[in-house]
């Protein structure tokens, strides 16, 4: 079978090279899909339909299959995130030790629920699956850095700082 023509990247953004490199390293095999999606999300922060369409075409995968994979895994997001991210661990130890406290605080003070981003695009609140730092429960990650022990106070201080909230 003659090779299908492969499309060029959708834009001349150099970040496409990061995505292309992964596909090339994995020989454009269908099995490269998840690794490629990781690379694309690392590069662009999220996965939009242009990106998915490009990856599907390059890997010769049906678009529906790509969409099925992207939406199966929690880690992938189709929406851009805010400048900062507060991730609240939903592991068992964190549940027992009151992860809900900071979530209710966020809801009360900023009307923000997990999965949402503030209107000024400063902060995204997300829930993450157990990060395995259970001894620090309840665990929160501020821009991917775990904070422990005095979690609640630390987290609220950092969030107020991010949002320029001086009260």
């Amino acid at each position, binding site marked *: 079978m003659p090779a299908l023509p492969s499309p060029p990247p959708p834009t001349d953004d150099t970040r496409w090279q990061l995505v292309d490199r992964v596909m090339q390293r994995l020989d454009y*095999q*269908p*099995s*490269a*899909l*998840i*690794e490629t*999606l*990781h690379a694309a999300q690392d590069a662009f922060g999220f996965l939009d339909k242009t990106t998915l369409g490009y990856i599907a075409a390059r890997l010769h995968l049906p678009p529906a*299959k790509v969409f*099925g*994979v992207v939406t*199966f*895994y*929690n*880690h*992938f997001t189709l929406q851009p995130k805010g400048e900062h991210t507060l991730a609240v661990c*939903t*592991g*068992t*130890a964190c*549940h*027992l*030790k009151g992860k809900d406290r900071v979530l209710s605080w966020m809801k009360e003070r900023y009307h923000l629920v997990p999965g949402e981003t503030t209107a000024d695009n400063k902060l995204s609140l997300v829930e*993450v*699956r*157990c*990060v*395995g*730092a*259970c*001894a*620090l*429960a309840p665990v929160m990650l501020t821009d*991917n*850095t*775990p*904070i*422990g*022990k005095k979690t609640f106070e630390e987290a609220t201080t950092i969030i107020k700082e991010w949002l320029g909230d001086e009260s």
Partner: protein
Amino acid sequence: MNREELKNLADEHSRHLEGFTHHILVCAGLGCPDNEAIIAGLRRVVAEQHLDKQVLVRKAGCMGLCALGPIVLIQPGEITYHNVHPGDAEEIVAALGKEPVPRLLLSEDLPFFTRQYKNVLALSGRIDPESIEDYIAAGGYGSLLGVLTTMRPADVIRTVQESGLRGRGGAGYPTGLKWATVAKALGEKKFIICNGDEGDPGAFMDRSILESTPHAVLEGMIIAAYAVGANRGYIYVRAEYPLAVKRLQRAIHEAERKNLLGHAICGTSFDLTLQLRLGAGAFVCGEETALIASVEGRRGSPRPRPPYPAGKGLWGCPTLINNVETYANIAPIIRCGAEWFASIGTEQSKGTKVFALTGKIHNAGLVEVPMGMPLREIIFEIGGGIPDGHTFKGVQTGGPSGGCIPEEFLDAPVSYESLSALGSIMGSGGMIVIDETSSMIDVVKYFMEFCMEESCGKCAPCRTGTVQIHRLLTRFQERQATADDLAMLEELCDLLKSASLCGLGQSAPNPVLSSLRYFRQEYLDRMIPADTPGEANS
């Protein structure tokens, strides 16, 4: 690399390490925040005082006592400091060779340290996870070289079989038997996979092992691949474990450079390439057929077994899948012999097991104990009991697939057989302690919500049944449940257990069933009396 070169490298690096009078090992795991600042602080003080030649500040793996972290270990002397801050650097350096800093000192007689039996974790916290030389100087890769030069694949399999090692991922399938099946399976290509998709919320054994001693896992995998005849392998790690991923990547690269991986390993005719594959957030990918689907780049939906992966796995080829801790047990078994391993533990559960001890417990952290140790000893002696004057209510083993064991069975030994007799499972090693302030129904509902969110949606009983069970538990939580609800709850649990496609669905009812067995009164107390007209069941 041959045995002699390995020995030379080990000797050379040992001499280098022995050249320092003091070693300061800082836990650089995910569970010890600020460790980078502490290491930087210590290095700065050492440099300022021109002690570079005498004092070596090293990054190390997890030392287990995460609740009191960050932990710093001083050698020689086995001095352990806890709750260290970057600002403590000067004091720590000043105390080297003198009286330890009392404020930070942990007694080495703590049962937490003395009651453990470290096998898999023996090097954890003792070596730099990012240095292959450190691992080799500690005897690492010796088992591999021994295997490649003196043992046939069948000998390796026999040794593993004789050791009695069972899978540490949860199900406890005999490891040697699995290896033998893959070795016998027909197929030109065979694969080996390491399951590092530790999805049980509240468990972090595999994260810690991968972060602390990545080479131990690689060594186990290389030996396994040799034994079953696989030439390609994948390590599937959760994307939530960035540090483990980074260290594994580095470890693979270093092992390749030392010819311990890749083409013609150590001059033999054995080839093995290992690649990392990142999970993307799906608990069900811990199930082996789902994990294979994910490695193939597909949705992580399990498929019916048989055929089992040992016969038809990755791309339809025979595939060996073991968990991180299982592989980490291999090198010690080869090194110390099957008899040694089989001498530890109980009749049907051999060796040691690593547990992640969390929840309402003093010494939250990672512990390794011989199989057969009573739960009470793990929780009350090693774990230091329940903090803040609260009382023990139950311990959940096996996470969302396990059950909660109450006080009256605390003298049961931890082993595959006894935990399953108690209606729980060994699982991967999560041990979550619950005190009297938590309602069992709340805990059980938490696990059911987890299973509901993590259900892949392929089979009807799990996809739809978890939703209905979760709804019923909410009715109990809100004290709206009726006797019919209780009957329906039990019926649905039976359905999921018997009819679901994979382990996730089949074990999802376990927390409910075990709480109905041991804490039934909590359900009964939340039911509305039979003669009250029922509220709408919606």
